[in-house]
């Protein structure tokens, strides 16, 4: 063993340790700490063990009921926007031009909604949908549709969903467009020779070649919509009633509205865990698809 032992290397790694400790580990441990305790103010804390977690996972309690309801709403929201944005994004990508100056124009128009901050998107739709001064709200009410997102649950949901579709379908479309562009021209020519219909071309060539980018699109859109806070909060504030209160809105209500730090900490840990698990599932599926591809290439 002629290895030179040089402990100086630790000093080089130290800054990273410090940054990570302060930015991630300490805050997380604070949350874990809170989740085990109860407080009645005055900076006095009492040990509560796993009490909050038990309550959280028991739907018959107030906390558990609210968590389950908001989780259900959130999952429903994510499924609806995925069901709309993914097919719509594919259709937009398919109908985009392949070359010429129109490509650049389409890309810019598509990218615009993605560049607008969440808060601003919420404000835009909040005003756009108002029945008294908003263009959409006013026009809808004027032509006889009773639309009011402040008082009607369904109207509120429709507004939040349409807003998300408007904001994020572009992302799916751009990803799909990139996937489509990578298909060699020979595939289309071969399909022509084989007499494939437009639908057959889509099913046999375009969709299989897009599956990787689609997986990424679904992952990004699911995670993002599952963590959604700003836009619905600005538009509906979680209402009417609790009808558009998603998990993160509920979390903020408990933590900052009621100042129940223990409950909020327990909720955010479970919330975090759910997101980690979903991420892990997607990641596994994606890397599996990747290794499968490598196997094929290895065979070649």
């Amino acid at each position: 063993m002629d290895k030179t032992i040089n402990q100086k290397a630790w000093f080089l790694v130290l800054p990273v340790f410090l940054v990570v400790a302060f930015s991630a580990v300490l805050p997380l441990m604070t949350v874990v700490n809170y989740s085990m305790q109860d407080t009645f103010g005055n900076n006095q804390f009492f040990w509560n063990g796993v009490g909050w977690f038990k309550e959280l996972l028991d739907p018959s309690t107030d906390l558990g009921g609210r968590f389950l309801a908001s989780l259900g709403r959130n999952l429903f929201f994510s499924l609806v926007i995925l069901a709309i944005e993914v097919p719509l994004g594919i259709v937009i990508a398919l109908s985009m031009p392949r070359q010429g100056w129109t490509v650049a124009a389409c890309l810019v128009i598509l990218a615009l909604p993605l560049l607008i901050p969440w808060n601003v998107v919420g404000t835009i739709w909040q005003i756009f949908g108002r029945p008294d001064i908003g263009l959409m709200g006013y026009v809808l009410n004027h032509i006889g549709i009773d639309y009011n997102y402040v008082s009607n649950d369904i109207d509120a949901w429709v507004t939040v969903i349409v807003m998300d579709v408007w904001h994020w379908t572009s992302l799916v479309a751009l990803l799909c467009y990139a996937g489509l562009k990578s298909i060699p021209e020979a595939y289309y020519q071969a399909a022509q020779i084989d007499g494939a219909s437009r639908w057959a071309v889509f099913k046999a060539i375009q969709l299989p070649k897009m599956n990787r980018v689609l997986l990424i699109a679904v992952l990004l859109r699911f995670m993002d919509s599952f963590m959604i806070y700003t836009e619905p909060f600005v538009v509906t504030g979680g209402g009417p009633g609790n009808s558009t209160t998603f998990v993160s809105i509920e979390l903020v209500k408990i933590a900052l509205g009621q100042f129940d730090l223990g409950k909020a900490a327990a909720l955010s840990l479970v919330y975090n865990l759910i997101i980690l698990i979903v991420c892990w599932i997607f990641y596994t599926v994606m890397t599996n698809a990747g290794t499968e591809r490598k196997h094929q290439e290895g065979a070649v």
Partner: protein
Amino acid sequence: MARIDLVDLAHSYGGNDAPQDSFALKPVTMTWRQGGAYALLGPSGCGKTTLLNVISGIITPSRGKILFDGEDITPLSTQKRNIAQVFQFPVIYDTMTVGQNLAFPLKNRGVPKAEIDKRVAEIGRLLDLEPYLNRKATRLTADAKQKISLGRGLVRSDVAAVLFDEPLTVIDPELKWQLRSKLKALHRELDLTMIYVTHDQTEALTFADTVVVMHDGRVVQSGTPAELFDRPAHTFVGYFIGSPGMNIIPAEVRGREAKIDGHVVGLNRSYDSLPAGAKIEIGVRPEFVETVAPAPGLLSAKIERIDDLGRIRFARTRLGDAKLAARAPAGFTSSDGTAGLKFDPSHIHVYADSLLVEGAA
């Protein structure tokens, strides 16, 4: 199953108004007979793939017509043209099995299921794909994939022609040979018109009954391999076919004599009416020039090197400014680096502005 006629066909990627020199495919009129095995041979960029894509309908020609059995199909789309084409790189439908891949062209045309199964089984057998028919096509090797592409081209029994666009590029040499023989056998068995694009003369000459040589967007000669070898209609054909290619040497030709570098070489035919002002060259294949010991009356050349190809040796020589390859018979050596050249007069051709001139007997 059809005769294919090309009538004054031309294509320019820059549109019909572009100068004719820039056309990727210059006007061509020719006939492909039903059941023939054709090869389109030429260097990269000579327009052979353009011609192929025009026939299959991927490109609409700027000018002229294509007739299948006398019927004008120029405006028809690829789908309606009843033609099959195999591309340079394998195209595989990832989600399907090998069998489904083979069945795809038939399924799209609404062929009854029993008929599809029969054809797929037959093509699978002919291409040795039987063990893989139920396997996913994505997991196979590149040459198996290309076999599937070939199979999709051959699976339809009613096609006017099957077009191959350098289909064996991705296959390694050993298998290439096998697949080429297989294609030839399939051609006999299936009675299809096949057009095979390649830049490899061996591939063209072994596959085809008729080889069509293209150069710079023009069809310069079409004929049997023997015709191309013995009587190249264009200096390009002479040079491109054969290894080494034909010697093309500037000469002054008068009557039955050609004057090269001040020496006179006798010709078998008489050339009295050569076009005035044209660039006159003679062409002779290295196989028909022999190096011998220098002697008076023989053209004398400087030997640069001798290539030993095993069965045969070729001497690379220099004649003034021109280069000339010649057969070096067994036992030939040169002590001073020069050699006399003996020509076989019956195999000397005369070219005016690169085109073959027929002499008078």
